[in-house]
Structures are given as C-alpha cells and as structure tokens.
C-alpha cells in the first residue's frame, strides 16, 4: 500500500497542534461559580442529621461518647454562633461555591486556588507553589493550611492545621489533629469533590465522602455577615451537654427509621455492605424481621 506522504504529514501536524493546546498533565481548571447538588445525602444536609445517627461513620468509642454528650443548645452560645464550617465539611453545607486562581504574571504558573462558600462566607487558599506546611506552633484555623498538586486531571489537596470541627452536625467530632486529603475533579460542567478525613483521635479508619456541584455562571453569592446575639439566656460559662447515659434522644433515629439501635451507633463495620447481611441475620435469629429491632435505651 502506497502511503500518501502529504496526508500523513498533515495528520502529524494536526495532532501536534492539538496536543499543544491540551493543558499540561491534562489539568482541568476548577475555577468558576458552582451550585451545590443536594440530591446526595439530602436528609443530612438540608433538614439536618438525626440525633444519634452515627451509621456508616468509622468512629471510635471516644467520638461516640462525645456525640452522645452533645446538646444542640451549644449552638445558642454567642461564642459558637458565627463559626463557619471547617474546610473539610464546608462543601456539604449550603455551599454555593466560587473557585478562582492566582497566576504569577511572569511565569503564568498557578500560585494558588481560592474557594469562597456561601454559608458564613469562609474563604480558603490552596497553595500550588510547593511551599511547606507551617510548624506545629502556628495557629490552627477553620480552613486549615492547604497545598495542592495535580495528579492527572485531579487536583489533590492536603490540609492540616485545622481547628476542631465536626463530621456530622449531630455532635460527631473531628479533632484538630486530623489531616484531610481532597480530590477535586472537574467533568465539564460538573465538579466532584472527594474528601478523605484521617483523624487519629476520633476515627478508626479514613472517612471518605463525595459532594457534587454543577457549573452556574449566573450565580451571585450574597454576603454573609454574622453577629452573635443572645437569643436564649444561659448563665455565663455554662456548657450545655448530656451526662453519660442520660441522653433520651439517642434512640429516636432507630425507632423512627426502624433501624437496629446497634447499627445507629456507627463504627467502621457499619460502613461496609456486608454489615447489612449481619443485621439481617441477627434480626432473623432474634425472630424479628430485619429493621424492626427497637432501641433498648
């Protein structure tokens, strides 16, 4: 077969030009206005999580007791009213999201990405210039200290120096010792953020969850000023909490959704599909259909 030299040269040139226009390492810039998609975990994210629902979270006994002791009245204290979500949770909230980047005008390299999220308006910087993380004695912040790097078309972010935060808004804590890895992936007009929390204090395994956004160029994020006010008078210094074994609200989730109470207590085992079989088997042996075991408390 005779090769058409002119045609093959043209094809090579076409490919070369095409390849040059593809960003290095196939980076997909996440910059833009992004609108949250609440179909994912909607009951937890919008109405809010049920008290005592720890299902599917790899918590240890310490985290369980802290969550059992948690009282929502804590949020009434002036010192807690203006807390923003920490960066590892912020994607889950009412999170209209803006991402933009700083460019070094001389080199055209990306120095940093920034995020702004609507609820409480936290702003965050993800450094892309290879700078080291700060030493231990530097203050921790709600957004932590983040550095990013490209892994193919995924922006991988590592964060430490976080203030103590929460994994679920029902008292499940995330300690200030945690480190967080995030993978930010853009698929055209959709953005997926996978958050992996490693917390040596309160988790026995890494906790992973994803949150999705869709591009919304018309989005306008309103300002979010916050001023603490006293709406319920608590004696100064009082800290609302439940003493151990006195929180009568804990079984409500189990009873309402007909989920075995033991399952609602969470732990690494409850993250995996096999746990469903265990629950069904235990219920069958107990002589009741799966999901009808009532809370004992």
């Amino acid at each position, binding site marked *: 077969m005779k090769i058409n030299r002119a045609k093959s040269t043209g094809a090579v040139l076409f490919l070369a030009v095409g390849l040059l226009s593809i960003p290095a390492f196939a980076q997909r810039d996440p910059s833009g206005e992004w609108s949250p998609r609440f179909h994912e975990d909607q009951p937890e994210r919008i109405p809010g999580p049920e008290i005592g629902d720890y299902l599917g979270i790899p918590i240890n006994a310490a985290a*369980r007791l802290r969550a059992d002791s948690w009282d929502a009245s804590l949020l009434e204290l002036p010192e807690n009213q203006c807390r923003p979500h920490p960066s590892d949770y912020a994607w889950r909230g009412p999170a209209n999201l803006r991402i933009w980047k700083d460019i070094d005008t001389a080199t055209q390299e990306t120095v940093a990405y920034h995020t702004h999220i609507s609820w409480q308006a936290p702003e965050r910087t993800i450094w892309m210039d290879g700078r080291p993380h700060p030493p231990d004695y530097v203050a921790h912040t709600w957004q932590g200290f983040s550095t990013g790097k490209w892994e193919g078309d995924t922006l991988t972010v590592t964060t430490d120096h976080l203030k103590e935060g929460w994994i679920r808004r029902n008292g499940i804590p995330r300690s200030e010792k945690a480190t967080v890895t995030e993978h930010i992936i853009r698929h055209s007009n959709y953005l997926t953020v996978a958050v992996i929390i490693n917390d040596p204090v309160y988790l026995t395994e890494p906790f992973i969850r994803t949150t999705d956004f869709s591009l919304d160029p018309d989005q306008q994020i309103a300002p979010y000023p916050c001023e603490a006010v006293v709406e319920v008078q608590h004696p100064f*210094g009082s800290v609302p909490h439940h003493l151990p074994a006195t929180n009568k609200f804990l079984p409500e989730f189990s009873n309402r959704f007909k989920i075995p109470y033991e399952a609602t207590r969470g732990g690494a085992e409850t993250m995996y599909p096999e746990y469903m079989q265990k629950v069904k088997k235990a219920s069958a042996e107990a002589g009741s259909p799966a999901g009808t075991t009532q809370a004992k408390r």
Partner: protein
Amino acid sequence: MLNPDIFQFPMKRRTALKLGGAALARLAWGQQNQNPANTQLHVLPVQGNVSMLVGAGGNIAVQTGKDGVLLVDTGLAQNADKVLAMIREMSKGTIRYVINTHVHPDHVGGNEKIAKAGKTIAGGNVVGNIGESASEGAAVIAHENVLNRMSAPTGQQAPTPQGAWPTDTFFVTEKDMFFNGEGIQILHQPNAHTDGDSIVFFRRSDVIAAGDLFTPGTYPIIDLPRGGNVQGIIAALNQIIKLSIPADKQEGGTYVIPGHGHLCDQADVVVYRDMVTIVRDRVQDMVKKGMTLAQVKAAQPTLDYDPLYGSNTGFWTTDMFVEAVYKSLSEKPEKK
C-alpha cells in the same frame, strides 16, 4: 510537650547529695531531657508588639517597642542564654520587665539570668535614696503567692535563689501598667493551676498570655499542693473567653498564647473550656452520688477526650487529672 520537671525547682548540690538513688536517677533523667544543646527556640510574631517564643520550656510572650522589652515568663533556667540571644535578635531595647504567670520552673526558671540582663526604670528620689542599685536588673512582676512559693521565711532554705524572685508583687485581683504604647492588664486568677496564676492582656496588640491556665495539648495541670483547683481553671478559661473578641467568622481577633502548645484564639479556648467543664460536671455528678475516687476513675469520665488530651505515662497522667478534679470538688482548696 510539657516538661516533666515543672513541679520541681532545680536542687542545690548539697540537697541532691542527700537524696536516694531513685530520686537522683529522676534528676538525671530530667537533666537529660532538658539538655540545652538540643533545645531549638522559635519566634512566632503574633500581632502588634507581641511575639511568641517557643521551645524554652513554657511559651514566652515577648513585647518589644520604643520603651524596651517586656517578657511574660522566662522558660527553663538552662535555656536562659538562648532566650537572651533570641531577644537580642528581636530587639536591641533594654529588658525592663518580666511578668511571671505562675511559679513553676519552666516559666520562672530564666528569671535570674534574664532579669539581670535588664534594667529597671528608676530615677529621681528612688536613685537618690538607694543609689544605682535601684536600676539593677529588670523588674520581675508576679502575684505575691509566686514570691511566697519561691522564697522562704528568714532562716529557712528558699527553693529558688533570691535573684530569681519577683521584685514587684501584687495581692489584689488586677495590676495595670502601660509600656510600649499599650495598656497591659495583669489579672490574677485565684486557685486555678496554682494559687498564684495571672493572665496578661496586651490591650492594643490584642494578645493574651495565658500561662498554664490554658494548655491545649494536655488536660489542665492542677497543682493541688500549690493551691490549684479545677473550678479556678474553668473560671480563668471563662475570663479569657470574656476578654477576647474574635474577628470575622469566629477566628483571629484576640490571640491567646497558651502556657504550652500552638498559638490559639478564642475558638480554641472555647473547645478547651467546654472539655474541662463537661469533665467537671460529670465528676461532680459522681461525687454527688457518693462515688469513691476509685469508682469515678473506673467510670472513665474523660473517655471521649483521652485520645486528645490524655496520657498513661509521664508526669501528668489522665489518672492524675481525674484525681485532681475529684479532690477539687470534694475538698476545700488550699488558701495561702
């Protein structure tokens, strides 16, 4: 990490020779862990006139300006030369004041050497009456219980050399001063970590030096024999919360330098205050039910905070903390 010998003043050679082997071994261990050659100091500018000096023992707050240098605490004795060298890098001004937050050696250990390197502002009638010695050394300010703990009645052996003692003491709840263009409030917190604690509030810089009333890496150390009490710790933490005003979104604004650990703000103090209060409430409930100390310990009232603040080894264990809380709530605090 807290120093294991914070409750122990350095012993005089004679005293050490009288001790048994175990105590000597402990002393040697302490000295090994306090090897000055291995100590690396770091300076973290906080805001305004104030920086945090880390690594000398307890954290040191350093205020510099046109009037000179003021320190809150002085670290361990063996690190005093390094502290002085670091201060000279930060400012060429004269060291005028040292304020001690409490009596422990990781906070007052450098008093003698550092005060000696400074000079008290003196003149007029003062110099006229008592001569040049009036301005020798920086003034060392502390609550009078700090002096009482560091000194001894005439004829008795004092636990620290006279050169390390506070020179200016106060017995009321507050002592105010103005230095380097800002008001400074020294606020006594009775019966907390010890019976001589003070927090120091730099009003213009908006920084609080908390001493060991706030140690975010460990359970609060309650020195019961020196008048400490968990109720005082909670009261002091609430005082810090009341004094501090966070900036936007509950972050920054007033910064708090803890006795040990990383720089903090009000939100960090709130987390810590919540922990101490919850543990206090649990133990108090158990005391009311008539539970013994052994029963309280067995009930694990700190279980949810142990991975963060607890320890089974070292000089301040979880067990010791629970015991100190229990005794704080079931015995009257020592008054001195």
